[in-house]
């Protein structure tokens, strides 16, 4: 029993460790948001470079940099305020297929695997961008936020392809997320399409249909409406609506999404 408990703990922790990456992403986004806010304030009020409390002041000796990989801080290191970041050119699919063929023939299997993964990554990014192109530019009076369009592909079946688009105006937001080709989504889709939710008496979620597709809508006082719809064997569509007055308003917003078009792009 003791041994079993230890292994269960081991597996649990092993699951938690990859979550740290997600938490780090959250920290990064918060940092990005803070930086954007600072820039906006600077634009309105001007840059106060002589202010000793200003963290952007390079002459400020108290300005410490705690972004070191190993957590130590270097008081003399400047804060990074330039740089375009990494280039996001998708991998060339045909080039990588060719490289995979060559490596496989030469029995360089690790290289072949890398090239195949890169080719899958290139294809998934292309599929994701095609899906984004097919989504409306405005939903229920909310325009889409171009900068927040997102396509993520890990090349790992565990996670698959994720596509996101955000529509926002004032305090109202509608976010569409599409997940595709993840091992876990098959099970999630079976659950969504089975009507299993209907057995509950909890009124915060219930079964709905979006066009001809079954799904589940949930309501949370803080996060608003969440609609999850199974759209194929391994794809799921999740729409999140913040500050929508009614369930009907949320559903009619979701009806603007052309599911057939998405399915076609994803090969469902």
């Amino acid at each position: 029993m003791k041994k079993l408990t230890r292994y269960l703990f081991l597996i649990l922790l092993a699951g938690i460790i990859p979550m740290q990456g997600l938490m780090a992403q959250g920290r990064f986004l918060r940092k990005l948001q803070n930086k954007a806010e600072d820039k906006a304030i600077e634009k309105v009020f001007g840059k106060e470079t002589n202010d000793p409390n200003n963290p952007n002041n390079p002459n400020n000796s108290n300005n410490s940099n705690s972004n070191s990989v190993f957590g130590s801080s270097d008081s003399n290191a400047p804060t990074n305020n330039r740089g375009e970041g990494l280039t996001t050119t998708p991998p060339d699919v045909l080039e990588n297929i060719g490289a995979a063929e060559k490596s496989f023939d030469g029995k360089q299997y690790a290289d072949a695997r890398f090239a195949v993964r890169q080719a899958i990554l290139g294809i998934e990014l292309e599929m994701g961008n095609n899906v984004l192109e097919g989504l409306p530019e405005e939903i229920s009076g909310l325009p889409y936020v171009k900068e927040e369009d997102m396509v993520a592909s890990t090349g790992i079946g565990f996670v698959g392809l994720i596509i996101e688009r955000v529509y926002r105006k004032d305090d109202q937001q509608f976010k569409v997320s599409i997940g595709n080709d993840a091992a876990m989504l098959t099970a999630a889709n079976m659950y969504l399409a089975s009507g299993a939710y209907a057995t509950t008496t909890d009124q915060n979620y219930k079964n709905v249909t979006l066009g001809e597709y079954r799904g589940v809508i949930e309501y949370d006082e803080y996060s608003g409406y969440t609609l999850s719809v199974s759209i194929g064997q391994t794809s799921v569509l999740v729409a999140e609506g913040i500050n929508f007055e009614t369930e009907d308003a949320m559903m009619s917003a979701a009806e603007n999404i052309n599911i057939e078009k998405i399915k076609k792009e994803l090969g469902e």
Partner: protein
Amino acid sequence: MKNIFTLLVIFIIMAVGAKAQDSEAYLDNASSEYKSGNLENARFNLQQMLQEINVAIGRDILALLPEELADMQKVEDADNASGINTGYAGIFVNRSYTAENRNAAIEIMSDSPLLSGINILLNMPIFIAGDPMQKRIKIDGQKALLTKNTSAEGKIGYDVQMAFGSTLLTFNCSGVDSENEVTAMLNKIPIQEIQKVAQ
């Protein structure tokens, strides 16, 4: 742990299902489907290819494993190299050894993002602090966790888990009384070479 691996083997065999097809055809199909704009079909062929590559890597790993350990001979029919594309484990390799009253098995899981987490955990000394039946050992430059166990019939056995990169190697044996004999057997496994092939 042994039961978990047995279940995993059954799961992999069920998931892999059909016999591997011509690998070159997958790449050719992927290329032509991509050119004609059928992205999903292109991806499907590449995912199949990935599976084939993992099987090929698995075979390479099997070729590196010793034919015999101590006085135990490998069990021919028990050799297994599977490729799977669920993201949990890309490669699964298994070899068993047997002799009178004793047996051993080597299982290697690789190409899994989850294993990096297990790697960190296995190398944490805190996990073995409270168990007198466990100790950390080093084989071919890699740290491993050795666990001694005794069956209901009083037969002594050892389990060893060693994680490196995205690979987890598990060794278990029964009917072997001495820890030195276990480490001698482990030293016959070319860990560095396996690591190179599986990376």
